[in-house]
């Protein structure tokens, strides 16, 4: 089992960095352009997983367990967020029969 950090280290750190940044950007672009609440939500999860990936890579490069622990916290919090988020989306769906965020425009400035 202790070979996994070594396997991770066979790829240069920059690759992880750029891959995570790309994944994160895809998530950001998805949140900003999509209209379906569930897809927006999936894009948010993509952003969080980009963070997780980068943390794992950094942790094995630095040999520091605290970043690995951070990953677990992010997973747990993301799971809690999924619970609440999907409940909110379902509640909205029951009222407007859609998950399109642009249909919800009762509040305007």
């Amino acid at each position, binding site marked *: 089992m202790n070979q996994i950090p070594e396997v991770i280290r066979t790829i240069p750190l920059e690759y992880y*960095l750029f891959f995570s940044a790309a994944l*994160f950007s895809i*998530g*950001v672009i998805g*949140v900003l352009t999509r209209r379906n*609440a569930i897809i*927006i*939500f999936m894009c*948010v999860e993509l*952003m*969080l997983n*980009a*963070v997780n990936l*980068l*943390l794992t890579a*950094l942790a094995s490069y*630095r040999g*520091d367990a*605290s*970043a690995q*622990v*951070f990953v677990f*916290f*992010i997973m747990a*919090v993301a799971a*809690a*967020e999924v619970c*609440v*988020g999907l*409940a*909110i*989306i379902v*509640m*909205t769906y029951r*009222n*407007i029969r859609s998950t399109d*965020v642009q249909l*919800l*425009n*009762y*509040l305007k*400035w």
Partner: protein
Amino acid sequence: MTSIILLSVFGIANLFIGFMKSKRILLPLAILFLIVVFGVNLLSWNDTQSYFNNMLTIDNYAVAFTGIMVLTTLLLVPFSQRYVNEKDSNLAEYYSLLLFSLVGAIMMVSYENMLMLFVGIEILSIAMYVVAGSNKKSLRSNEAALKYFLMGAFFTGILLFGIVMIYGATGTFNITEIGAAQIATGGVMNSMFILGLLLVVIGISFKISAAPFHFWTPDVYEGAPTFFTAFMSTVVKTAGVAAFFKLMAAAFAASYAAWFPTMIAITVLTLVVGNIGAVVQGSAKRMLAYSSISHAGYLLMSLIAFNESSASSILFYSLSYATASIAAFGVLMLVADQKGSEKYEAFNGLGRTNPLLAFAMTVSMLSLAGIPLTAGFFAKFFVFSAVLQDSSLMWLVIIAVILAAVGIYYYFRVVIAMYMQPADNYEKIRVGSFASFTLIFITVLTILLGIAPALVSDIL
């Protein structure tokens, strides 16, 4: 630490007590819980301790802000009396969610590690997503919850990416060590660190609704039930600003030059958007939402002053803003329940029908506007004098004073409506005994702090 444990236990206990048929016991019990937590919290004064392998530190800063947040919740809870009589309200759950989110707020003011900051923000926010949508049948409440949730989760992702970038640059999550790492490199920072710093600033700016990340605030504050709007605009903002200042002071003091231009732009933009936005609103609730943006701007001013009086000016400003806001939202809630409208016109004739409500509202409006003899005046005074220690920031104070004068316009619209506009019907609004007592208490506190600000301003 004891307050965190007690709040968690009380929150769970509250859920079980909710099984009972009668809801009448819940409100006195919630008040009792909060009083106990408030007292226990004060026991940690001048007794700095670290917990969880130095991930949380309860120092005087944390105790003072915890005190304010618990007190704010304590003053807010009596206004939930309307839910006692409502059939399909889940009072026990509401109280529990408030208690649980206070746990997150306490973690946000006592963290010593980025992990605790993240967990604290999430504990606070997830509870807020739920309560924003607690009025399940109302489409506006649904929309508020969905907007808040999607935006909140999005900016949590941004905050996290920033934290990871900073970890990549410095190799630690501990805020003191992050600060030391920059001093070790002689203040030279690589682009990874700068990017992380920027993303963290954006993530927290969203939580305290600083412009340009404020766009969700008016919508969410208007759509959410007023009771929870009051909580969001006081406790969440206090926790966010306190966490922000702690982060900047402990972790990014050495890179002051790097974040100062960004922060000053955010502050000026927040002040302008908040005050100008509030002027054009027709709804008092939406005006209060914009006013909370503008107060975030004043709070950020004392953050960018960044000297030894910043912490105490943030503390005093939070206290005066929170108490005045609670009174304003509380009266708005009572009026809106009766009249079915949150517009300025709903306040017409309140001075004649309910002198107490009108007086409490007037004092809180004066305090929010920063008129002398109220707490709000000294709050603004301390912030401005903290900024003026650096005389090159004179222009910022001038802008802030002009915008504060704009603020007087929209706050006084409410006062004028209450005392000078004729109403259609002069029906007295029924106010519960807890709520009237709280309003009197807030009014006395606001005036007391306006006469003797040294009671609070010197403790940090």
